[in-house]
């Protein structure tokens, strides 16, 4: 170490800026490829960030964010005095955990299965079909679900009845909805996540597979000892990304599936739907921004915590 420093000093003087320019020149293609993402996040995530100040103001349209009177934490209070916060937090977090865990397991499983299939056309067609629900809007999804499950005329209800069974009144049964919502979310998201994992699998060094084959590993063993361990970094990174949004619910999905049916709220009310119900008539930017800021700040600390945890166990896989 010491030696290196000395050596460096004795070399012809290369200033920091010169080195920087040289590095930029060397990696210009890589940098260029990063540029769209950098611009995207700068414009849509960093530039609006100072605007979060709106959460601390009594926002006036004609005075703008910076000219509106400062009111401190006033806008955060309504969420806390509602008496609903613990239920909302519980539902929001549990649903997101279920989405993350169940979603990733299923996506991984499908990606591995697709990888084992040798018929390329079959893989392509399956992938496309699985991807399709991702593009269906939540409004349509809710209509589909209603037409399948509604008690009087639903497709499933008719099926159950014609088979001599008794159809439960699902739209009056809060207990059924965690299952339904997780299933719907799986149906929508599996195709998308599978593609990510499938791509990661394709990136695994084939020589390892061949070596394992020569050593006599069967298909199951190859998955267990090569594919899964190689996917671990991807899983961890995706998990860390997902966990930052653990306090943010998918409003479109929940609102469309449940609507104003308060018989289901016990198991389906998340922060977003509550905020909508409370503020649908008051259109209060500042208060809704306060809720968003609260979710983001908590999410930020959860990511930091999770990352620290990962760093302890497996330092190479941490984000930073």
């Amino acid at each position, binding site marked *: 170490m010491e030696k290196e420093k000395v050596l460096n000093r004795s070399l012809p003087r290369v200033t920091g800026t010169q080195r920087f320019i040289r590095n930029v020149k060397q990696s210009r293609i890589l940098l260029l490829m990063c540029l769209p993402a950098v611009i995207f996040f700068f414009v849509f995530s960093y530039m609006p960030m100072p605007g979060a100040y709106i959460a601390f103001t009594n926002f006036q349209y*004609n005075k703008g964010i910076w000219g509106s009177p400062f009111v401190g934490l006033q806008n955060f209070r309504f969420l806390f005095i509602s008496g609903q916060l613990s239920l909302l937090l519980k539902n929001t977090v549990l649903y997101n955990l279920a989405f993350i865990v169940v979603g990733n397991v299923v996506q991984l499983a499908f990606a591995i299965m697709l990888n084992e299939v040798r018929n390329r056309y079959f893989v392509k067609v399956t992938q496309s079909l699985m991807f399709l629900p991702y593009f269906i809007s939540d409004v349509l999804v809710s209509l589909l679900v209603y037409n399948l499950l509604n008690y009087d005329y639903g497709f499933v209800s008719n099926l159950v009845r014609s088979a001599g069974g008794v159809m439960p009144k699902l*739209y009056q049964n809060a207990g059924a909805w965690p299952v339904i919502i997780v299933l719907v979310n799986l149906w929508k998201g599996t195709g998308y996540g599978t593609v990510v994992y499938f791509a990661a699998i394709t990136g695994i060094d084939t020589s390892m597979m061949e070596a394992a084959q020569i050593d006599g590993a069967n298909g199951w063993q190859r998955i267990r000892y090569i594919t899964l361990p190689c996917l671990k970094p991807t899983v961890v990174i995706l998990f860390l990304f997902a966990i930052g949004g653990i306090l943010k619910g998918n409003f479109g999905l929940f609102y469309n599936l449940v609507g104003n049916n308060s018989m289901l709220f016990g198991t389906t009310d998340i922060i977003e739907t509550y905020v909508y119900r409370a503020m649908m008539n008051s259109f209060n930017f500042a208060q809704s921004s306060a809720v968003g800021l609260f979710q983001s700040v908590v999410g930020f600390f959860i990511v930091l915590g999770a990352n620290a945890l990962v760093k302890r166990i497996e330092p190479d896989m941490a984000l930073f």
Partner: protein
Amino acid sequence: MKKLVALLLAVMMIAALLPIVASADEPVTITYLVTGDIPTNRTDEVLAMINEKLIEKVGAKLEIRWIEWTDWTTNYNLAIATQSGDIDLVGTATDWLDAWPNTQKGGFLPLSEEMLKEYAPLTWAAIPADHWEKCKFNGEIYLIPEDQYAQWTNHGFMYRGDWAAEAGLADGVHSWDDLGKYLAYVKENKPDVIPWDADGNGSSYSQQMSGGWQTSHTGNIYIEGMGVDLFYGESAENPYTLSTYYLDSDEFVNFAKTMKSWADAGYWRTDVLNYTGDVAAEMKEGTTAARQHHTETWTGFRTEMENAQPGSDLGFFWFGEEMGNVVTLNITHGAMAIASSSKNPEKALQVYDLLRNDPELYQLMMYGIPGEMYTLDDNGYIARPEGWDEAVMGCTFNWWWGRNDGIGLRAADRDWETIDKLYAVYNEKAVTYPYGQFIFDRTNVSMYLDNLSNVYNTYMPRIVFGMVEDPEAYVAEYRAALKAAGIDLVMEEIQRQLDAVYAK
């Protein structure tokens, strides 16, 4: 390279200056913000004709910015909140659009008397002083009211007169009791018809249904623009005392019980709270027997039903009929405001003044090209050509912020004899909306109002559609939740502000 850069810069500067140079004689564009789906009929053609006249008369032309019905409340308020000189005229309302909250948040421009007198002289002269009073906030005028147009938007139920007669209601449906009998008859005798196939998804029926029962069984009067529909005045004789109907009235329990019995009887779907359907379309197909909406809707729908189901004789049971409890429409149910960031408020007022008062322009906008899109019959009513389809052949401006009976025309296809009969009853019974000067300032209680909004939207849909085991217990639970959310504090504040405006 340098030359190229210099050239580019020069071109850009010229391009930037061009509009300024060119605009010297160009007409000013006035953008009109309005709710409604972008029309696909001949609106643009009619707009061009209107603009020709506007340019000639005041050197301005109109451009329409539509807020489509999908998520309209949000998008409408967002357009006002994020304005940057891109809107001028804003169609608004104090009940169904947030005119006052937007005024309080600085979305609209205060209109001085001098401005109105100079740039909207006809409008200024036509609106009486006490009407202007109702458009003031902190002593300044912000809204131009639609006060020269008679309409009734009080809610009720549309029902088929032919089926009511079969049910033994020869006179039609005139009370909630009658309505119950009518729905029961349909359920019993029309196996393919859902008596009222309500689209209960969303919370739109809470206020109408519950308030409907309330005005039919008490003298209570609805106070609009509060954000949560829990606040009513006691009666026409005592309007400035708040009613405690939602906290302690037995009538509300009766309502919950009746709706429970209707739900159990199957007058609507089991899963009504998640159903999104088109009641009007179903009614025209003959698969449902009732539709809940307001009088104005009924006047047009009666004709549509007569065409779709000949002999259906669509009747209207208006909420409050049993008690004769009906209130005239507030004059700011429709109103025009000027956006606070408007660069040409004077021109905007001139355009509004013409569209509201100039017979030629007004009729062009409201009914289309004369001779081609309509002719006048012997009564002076508008007759449309054979095979008329408004959505294809007509023009749509959704001008609900300055209609004018003085230069307006009636549609020949409406059943004016029946309609006028109902209007006569209204005119006889109605009291003037008593809260026209009351603009609620929610600052002190906004937190509690938001939590009340949540409680209201959680409990009311289930009460309204009878989706409860024990209505009495559920109402008690609801009342406890309202108390917990701070309804007492809010009512105290409203009462205080009411007293301040209408000091006894």
